[in-house]
């Protein structure tokens, strides 16, 4: 097998006595769109900064394309970064920003111009080359930052919450565009975000991080359908976590069935309670139920079939049912 694009082994990093990254190992394949997902303080950005070379691990090894780069400075590593604040050079034009990496590596001027132009065309900004970063919108700056990194044809592109500063609509457009660009150029992407929908939409694989360790690593489908821990079950989407006879279950709201108490049921398992809230969300309706057993459970039904539930008002006695196959036992799950 060919060398992995990025290989991380037992990496540890402390800041001022706190463990920020606590023994992380992972391997990213060439051409993969790999996401590190977690809440702030989970260590994902620190891990990215160690791959870029801005931080040095206290222990462990980082390899790029089979070469140990753990102690290498940032400027000789075959990686480029798209920063959260874009970090565009304010005194240089858009073209000069994109050319910067080629210029410091002494690529001849004409070749530099051509490659920068091609990179700007890829992000559809070829017509704004003369502008200064201060004259661009947030979305345009974001794309300049992307072009400035990609133009160097790095082995790995590191993206640190690159869409964090954009509004929702633009963010969703950029997700599609980023994924398309990644497929076209075939560069390995390592993407850091705290937004689970963004991670699901773009990634080949997701590493879910919490407190400096990887809680679970898998495809979007795996981490959603088979969460390995209560943390993952809650962090990715919404989960109902119930403990019954010593086993902890994670049940997705859309997998649960809702009936009036006493109605005949098609599901195997069934529990009763009181409907506390009905929340209309446009595409879906969210039902909040207080089970007699004590827990709060959330059921989501699509509004295409919500007519069935027209008579369900707050205070109604209801039954929540599910098939055992739709639940995930968290204790038995293997990382």
């Amino acid at each position, binding site marked *: 097998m060919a060398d992995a694009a990025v290989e991380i082994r037992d990496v540890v990093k402390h800041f001022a006595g706190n463990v920020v990254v606590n023994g992380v190992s992972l391997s990213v394949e060439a051409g993969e769109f790999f996401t590190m997902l977690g809440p702030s303080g989970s260590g994902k950005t620190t891990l990215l900064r160690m791959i*870029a*070379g*801005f931080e040095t691990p206290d222990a462990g090894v980082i390899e790029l394309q089979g070469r140990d780069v753990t102690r290498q*400075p*940032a*400027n*000789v590593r075959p*990686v*480029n*970064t798209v*920063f959260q*604040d874009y*970090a*565009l*050079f*304010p*005194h240089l034009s858009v073209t000069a920003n994109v050319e*910067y*990496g080629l*210029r*410091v*590596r002494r690529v001849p001027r004409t070749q530099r111009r051509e490659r920068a132009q091609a990179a700007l065309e890829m992000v559809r900004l070829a017509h704004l080359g003369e502008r200064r970063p*201060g*004259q661009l919108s947030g979305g345009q700056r974001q794309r300049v930052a992307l072009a*400035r*990194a990609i133009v*160097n044809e790095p082995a790995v592109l590191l993206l640190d919450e690159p869409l964090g500063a954009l509004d929702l609509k633009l963010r969703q457009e950029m997700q599609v565009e980023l994924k398309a660009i990644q497929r076209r150029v075939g560069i390995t992407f390592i993407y850091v975000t705290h937004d689970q929908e963004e991670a699901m939409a773009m990634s080949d694989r997701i590493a879910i991080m919490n407190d400096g360790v990887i809680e679970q690593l898998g495809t979007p489908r795996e981490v959603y359908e088979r969460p390995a821990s209560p943390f993952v079950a809650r962090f990715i989407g919404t989960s109902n976590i119930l403990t019954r006879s010593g086993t902890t279950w994670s049940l997705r709201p859309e997998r649960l069935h809702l009936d009036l108490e006493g109605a005949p049921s098609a599901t195997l398992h069934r529990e009763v309670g009181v409907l506390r809230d009905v929340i209309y969300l446009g595409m879906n309706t969210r039902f909040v139920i207080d089970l007699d057993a004590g827990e709060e459970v959330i059921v989501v039904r699509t509004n295409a079939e919500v007519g069935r539930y027209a008579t369900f008002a707050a205070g109604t006695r209801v039954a929540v049912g599910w098939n055992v196959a739709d639940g995930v036992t968290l204790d038995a799950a293997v990382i």
Partner: protein
Amino acid sequence: MKHRLLRSGQWLWVSGVLVFLFAPIATIVLFSFDRSNIESWPIHHWTTSWYSVAWHDTAVRQAFVLSLKAAVAATALALILGSLAAFGVHRARFFGRDTISLLFVLPIALPGIITGVALNSTFQWAGINLSLWTIIIGHTTFCIVVVYNNVIARLRRTSSTLFEASADLGASTGQTLRFITFPLIATALVSGALLAFALSFDEVIVTTFTAGAQNTLPIWIFGAIRLGQQLPEVNVVVTLVVLIMLIPIAVAVRLTGRDTMSSRA
């Protein structure tokens, strides 16, 4: 109506402050054209002859040249030492960094007489004769401060990810300095240098203790006023100094003004 009254009141107030600040300078400029040796109002005979007298006075010329040399040299030294100090303090993450930052700024807060006496005793003790060089050293102590302050303020306002981005794109430390750091702090260096020059050019107290037998221009003015024999000539020299000082101050204000505008954009 009440609003109008308030507004004209404000204008009156502002004008009053401006008169308070600039009337003395205007007086000196006016009297530089008075033919009489004794200043009295109104001026009866207007003349520009004092300008010719001052121009041909070798003492004034020598003092002017000495002031210019001291200011240029002190500014140059301050540019090098002040910006290096700012880089060091900005980059380093060591214990007592804030204390050191304060120590750099202290000379400008310290009364000039303390700096002057301290330098004078040091030179005496070390057996260094007072000369142009001791003036330069004295002026450099407070010129460093304005350069340091300007540069470190700029560095603190500059996002550190810019330097990381430069390294990330393959630039060596030297390339980052040349292509990114220097262009970003260039205007801070220029405005720092202009302020340092202005400070040095009209400094009296520290100069008194470090100048020995030579006169800088402010020292010459100070002496001439005390003797009281050449008051019209003093008026002329002061008028010229005001005109000369206006240039660097105006440029410095323009530069810092433009900076705040572009950083807002």
